[in-house]
Every structure is written in C-alpha cells, then in structure tokens.
C-alpha cells in the first residue's frame, strides 16, 4: 500500500487495475493534454505546490490529476458529486500517489467530510466544479483562505457562485472562469453534454428518440447541445426559456419555443439545463404528460424537484436501473438517476476528446495561476493566447490546416480609416 492509499478515504483499493484500464483509454484519446499541457507544465512552476482537484471523479478527471502530479504538484482529489465517483478510478489514483477522499454513493454527511478533508490539506490551487470546495473553504475554513493562491472553476453554475462571492466582497484570491474559455464551453457544454446526455437517456430507458417531443428547459450552451442532438436523433425539440435573447436564438434555429405550461403537456422527454433550481417545480409537476421521462443535464440535482414529486406521488418504484417511477394522479412519470446530472450519474460522462479540451483549459489555468503570482483577486478569463493554443493543438492532431491572413488583409483590419 502506498502512502497515498493510507491517507485516502476510498471504497476499495483492490479495484486499482480496473481503474488503470480506464485511465489508459483516456490517455490514448487525449492528444491536447499529452502534447500541449504536458509540455507547458514541465517548467517546474507546479513543483511542490498543493493542488486540490474536486471534479467528477472518473477516468478523465483522474488523468488530469495524474498530469498535475507528474508536473510536481502534490495533488489531493475528491468528487464533486457522490453519484459520479467511480471507485475503481479512485483506487488507481491512490495507488499512483494521489490522495483521494471520495466514495461512490456516499451520503451527504460523508461527502461533506470528504470535501472538508481536502480543504484541510490547505490547498494552494483548486480545480473546482460548481465551486464546491471553494465555497466550503470560504465558509467553513476561513483560516485557510490565506493559503489559497487561486481557483479555476469548471462550470457555469460555479462561476455564478464565485460572482456572488465577489459581490459579497469575499473573493480575496484570483479565480479563473475556465468555463468561459472558448475551448471549454463551446465544446464541453454543447457537444459534450449534448451527445452524452441523449445517449445516457436512451440507454437508461431503452426508448426511441425518433418522432418524440423533447422539451429542453434552458437554452444556454448545454441546452443548445441538447436541442441539436435531440433533433439529430429524429426528435422535435421544444425550448423553454426565461431570457428573450436565447429564446429568439432557439426560434431562429428552428426549434419550437413555448412556455413551460404549454410545452410540458406534450413532451415525451423533459431535459433540464438551467443551472438553477426547480426548473420542474411543484406546480409544473401537474403539467407533465403521463409517461414523461425526466432527466437533468445541469450541475445541481435540484433542477427537478424530486422531493415535490415524492410528495405528490401515491407510490414510488424503481422501474429499471436508474429509472424511478412516480405514480401521480394523472399517470406515471419517470425520473432518471434521481435527478442528478444524468450523463455522469447514469453513464461515463462526457466523451474523452471533449474533456481533453476542457482539462487542457484547466491544466493551463492552474499553470497560469501558479506562474503569475501578481494576479489580482477576483474573476479572470483564461488568457486568449492559451485558448488559441489549445484549439491549434487539437486541430494539428486532427491533421487540419489553417490559412493565415495575407499582409494586405491584416493591414486592412489594423486600420480604422478605410
């Protein structure tokens, strides 16, 4: 047993071989991490730095953690959601020297103590998801805020939380909005979530998409991806929004746009992607079509108000693995993966190549924080040249070549008087 396994809190160290297999598959399909990130991290900037990684703990996250460790960082990892933690991957990470505090399906108090155990290692840099660790350090371990040199945040939801923290005057360290990098949200939120959520829903239910009406609640990057892939599978998308701009964009894209109360009675599938809470609240439950399948594609497991469903149901049964059926007055409705993020709780999460981009953003963000000591407190964007370097590397691995502007074209853009 390695030291890291002894310090770790995981389900079963004997699963490590299985976890290694999964990580090896990720390594094979992560050209940007392998090429660009590994090369940039090799300058010693992370040597001896305490880095906490609190992201869905499956093979792709593990590979990021291992790259950071390989670059000299002392990495501690926890899951951002007990439903998505894979015990085999935790075991492999621990065996390779990363301290892990995570167990699949851990109850809320254990999840809490795992995150606090990571906080107690006094991390200098944090790769966070949903600001789960950052918020806890600020709230429960204020004495450790001083040792925080920076945070990089993965999700839309987490950035909203960090902005709230900034408004409250308590964001006393620099935070990079990794989600706002082009190479993150343009690909991960849209194509990654789009593909993997639809695939998870179809796998969990063994139902057909062709000819179905799929209600997409929220038309941010995730909602755009969901509507696009649902359409690609032969379904009709109906979009529900509160913001007129994305609602108009959805309409121009060719999707039907409707109020929730009009969309739900005809929806065979309902996918939530608002990043908020109670997208399907107690009132909306009454508008659901009998037989409707509900799944969440947003960070919180509070987008579908499962408690309200439970209160309204005369009976609750498990219909299949990952499918809970609520018997309501108007008929049955089915909730997938208990309303947790369905592609991660009910399947393997985003495709590997997408997370290669997202985690290249994270790796370069961590490196940027470590090597830029004078970064002011507050939220920052990933420097544009890093974003471009990631895209250029990915294109190169695809064998795709680009043009350059000619000298006269460039001169034209540089002048204001023409």
């Amino acid at each position, binding site marked *: 047993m390695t030291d890291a396994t002894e310090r770790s809190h995981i389900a079963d160290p004997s699963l490590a071989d299985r976890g290694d*297999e*999964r990580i*090896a*598959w990720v390594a*094979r*399909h992560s050209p940007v991490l392998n090429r660009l990130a590994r090369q940039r991290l090799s300058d010693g900037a992370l040597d001896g730095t305490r880095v906490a990684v609190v992201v869905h703990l499956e093979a792709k996250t593990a590979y990021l953690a291992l790259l950071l460790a390989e670059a000299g960082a002392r990495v501690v990892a926890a899951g951002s959601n007990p439903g998505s933690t894979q015990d085999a991957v935790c075991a492999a990470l621990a065996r390779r020297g990363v301290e892990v505090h995570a167990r699949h399906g851990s109850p809320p108090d254990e999840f809490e103590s795992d995150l606090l155990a990571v906080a107690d290692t006094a991390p200098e840099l944090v790769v966070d998801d949903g600001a789960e660790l950052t918020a806890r350090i600020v709230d429960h371990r204020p004495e450790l805020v001083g040792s925080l040199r920076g945070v990089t945040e993965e999700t839309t939801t987490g950035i909203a939380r960090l902005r709230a923290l900034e408004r409250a005057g308590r964001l006393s360290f620099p935070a990079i909005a990794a989600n706002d990098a082009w190479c993150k949200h343009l690909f991960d939120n849209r*194509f*990654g979530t789009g*593909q*993997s959520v639809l*695939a998870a829903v*179809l*796998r969990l239910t*063994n*139902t*057909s*998409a*062709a*000819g179905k009406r799929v209600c997409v609640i929220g038309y941010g990057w995730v909602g755009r991806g969901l509507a696009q*892939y649902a*359409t*690609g*599978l*032969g379904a009709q998308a109906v979009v529900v929004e509160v913001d007129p701009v994305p609602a108009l964009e959805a309409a121009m894209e060719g999707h039907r746009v409707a109020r929730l109360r009009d969309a739900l009675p005809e929806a065979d599938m309902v996918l939530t992607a608002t990043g908020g809470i109670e997208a399907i609240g107690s009132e909306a439950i009454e508008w659901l079509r009998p*037989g409707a399948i509900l799944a969440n594609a947003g960070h919180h497991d509070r987008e579908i108000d499962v408690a309200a469903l439970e209160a309204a149901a005369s009976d609750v049964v*498990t*219909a*299949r693995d990952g*499918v809970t059926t609520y018997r309501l007055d108007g008929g*049955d409705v089915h909730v997938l993966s208990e309303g947790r993020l369905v592609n991660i709780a009910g*399947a*393997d*999460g985003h*495709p*590997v*190549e*997408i997370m290669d981009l997202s985690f290249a953003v994270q790796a370069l963000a961590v490196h940027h924080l470590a090597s830029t000591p004078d970064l002011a407190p507050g939220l920052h964007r990933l420097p544009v040249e890093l974003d471009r370097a990631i895209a250029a590397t990915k294109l190169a691995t*695809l064998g795709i070549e680009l043009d350059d502007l000619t000298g006269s074209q460039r001169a034209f853009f540089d002048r204001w008087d023409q």
Partner: protein
Amino acid sequence: MSEILDPTLAAAGAAKIDWAAAHAPVMAHMRDRMVADRSLQGRRIGVVLALEPKTALLAQILTDAGAEVALACPAALVTDDVAAALAARGVEVFARSDATPAQDEGFLAAVLDHRPEVVIDDMAELIRMAHTTHTGALVHLQGATEETTSGINTLRAMAADEALRIPCIAANDARCKHLFDNRYGSGQSVVMALLDTTNLMMGGTTVAVVGYGWVGKGVARVARGMGARIVVSEVDPVAALEAHHDGFDVAPVTDACATADWVITATACPGALPVSAVERCRDGAILANAGGPADEIDVTGLAERAREIRAVRDHVVEHVLDDDRSVFLVGDGRCVNLSAGEGHPIEIMDLTFAVQGLATRHLALHAHEMAPGVHPLPAEIDAEIARAKLAALGVGIDDLTPEQAAALADWRHAPSV
C-alpha cells in the same frame, strides 16, 4: 422443463418485461385481439430470438393468448433474469448465458422437439434445422415467420433450390418492420451502443458505413445527426447512388477505411470488411457490426493478423497490428446493439413484434391454404399495425374521399395535366 441459469432472478426480469410492456401499445392491441378471438388457443409455437425484455414480452403475449410457447436463444444474446421471468410466466425457455455451443445447438433441437406448428425464426436457424438435421419436425411444422434480412436471403435460396417445404412470411419485408426497425431502431441503438462503450465523441469524426440497405441508411442518418461525416461503401450501384443523393460520400471499402475513425458494417454479408480493408484503417479506428451475421467483419482473419489482442474496456478489444497501429473491435463483431447494448428501442420492437405476432396468427389460421415458399405479410396487417401505433400517438390521418378513390381507380379517363 425450461433450461435457464437461475430461477431466483425472475423478479428482476419481470420488472424489465413490465417496463417494455408499458411502452408497447401495439403489442397490447395485438394481445387483446388474440385473447378475444382465441386464434392461438392450444397452438404450439417455437421462437428463436435474442432473449431480452422485448422478445420476452412477445413470447408472453402468445402464451397469454393460449399458445404453448417454447423459446431458445444462443448464450451470447441471453439476459438471464428475463429468461427466469419468462419461465415463471409459463414459457418453456431454453437459454442460459453460460451455455456451450453444443448446449445452444441442443436448445434449438429442444424447441423442435416441442413439435411447433409455427416458428418465429431469426437468421432461419430453426427452419434450416427442420429441413436438414431434424426433418421430423416438418411433420407438425405448418409455417414460419422470419425476422431478418439475412434469414430471408437463406429462405429465398432454399426456395430457389426447391428445398423449402413450408410457407414462410418474410416479416422483415413488412413495411412496419424494415422501415422502422432496420432504419430507426438499428440506427439509434448501434450508434448509441458505440458511444456508450467507447465514451468517445462522434461529432467531427468520419464514420464509414459499409452497406446502404435500411440498416446502413439508419446508421448513416443517426451518425450524421451526431455530427459525423459519413462515407458509404456499396456493391449495388442503385444504393450507392441513393447514398450520394442523400449527401454522403461514397467510396470503395478500402478507401473508406483509410479515412474513417469508425467503420460500421451493415451488409448482411460475411466478409464485408476483409482484413485487407482493416489494414488500411487509421490507428485507433473503431470497428463494429450492425448487421446480422457475426462474420461481416473478418474477426478470425483479424485475430490471425494481430500481433497482440487485449481487452481495454468492457466490450472493446484492441488488436495491435504489425506496424504498431491498433484497431478496436466492439462487441466481438456480433451485432453491436445486442452484444454491447440492450438492443433496439422498445417502441420500435413494439412494431416489429406486432408484425411477428400477427404473422404468427395469420399462419396459425391460414398456413394450410398457403403454398411452400416466401410470402409477404398481407398488406392489411401492415396497415392495422400502423393504425394502432398512430392511434396510440393520438395522430389522425385522412381517408380518400369516394371521389378521389374512384378517380384513382379510373383508367378510362386520363387525368388533366
């Protein structure tokens, strides 16, 4: 007596069958009809199909309608808890996931020993046995209905040799079968099985679809919906031209392989992807079969050619070639949505098995009036199935007015142009 792995799994299997039943309105319509008209009362029926919740539902409905049903399934395609549930619900089941090939062969024979009057066949397995090694079965066997394109090819070859002794309904050729099952069912479930097993991105990649029949069309359509570029390989010039007009690239299979991240066979033809084509594949290419035969990809030749073979994920086997390139075979080259997934979506199989159930009913009532050979499903049964599904969807359609019907039937008067 049934031959299954573990009877105690019945409760878990029953839940799966009930989930399928909740999404199968057309089969419910069929069940009501058969129970009411007693058309299958006391009739002996043999079934060979991949044993999972949807096929179980079909077998159960035939049993509910009064038939004595015996079912066999090869080990690779058995879901043991469903087998247990089905046995508990009165079907004779010969299917266990740990069966040896010899046992599987015995299971097929056991179904024929049940002296079926009608068989629901897959890949013409039972029909072939009844005409070769177990000809005694022909004493009782009055007719058969066949599920797959591959099986119908076999039956046509038998009929051409004047070897086919019973009437067979080409269930696959029914419009409510191939237009939906082969295209939308295979299309969705094959692509989804690949995404599930590999956890890879399809958007922006190139997918080679070998064969542009209904399955190939469906796979190409869904893969395009997932953001992939498609290149189609064909031997039939008409199908190739159709693929071109659908907006896909068309190329010979070796050239297609050279550009593809994924190669999916859908030809119903053994050796559709020969080793010579695999040798042109890019490093990391994913190979899978969406068709009936397990040897559309030359799996044996590939294994001989590979320097090293190792399992890298569930259902994914890496084959390292001499020059350190690897290709990854998903689901052993067997039909990938079944070998590495849960098969077609339920609503699609609802249509397919309504075809099979009503074809069985038709044979039970009319086989004695039908000549040996391959027959289509009567058009009115196809229409009945589609109407039942549309009714379940709440979709209304029009009828021709008497004037319109008369005008279409009138050959004396040229329509004005």
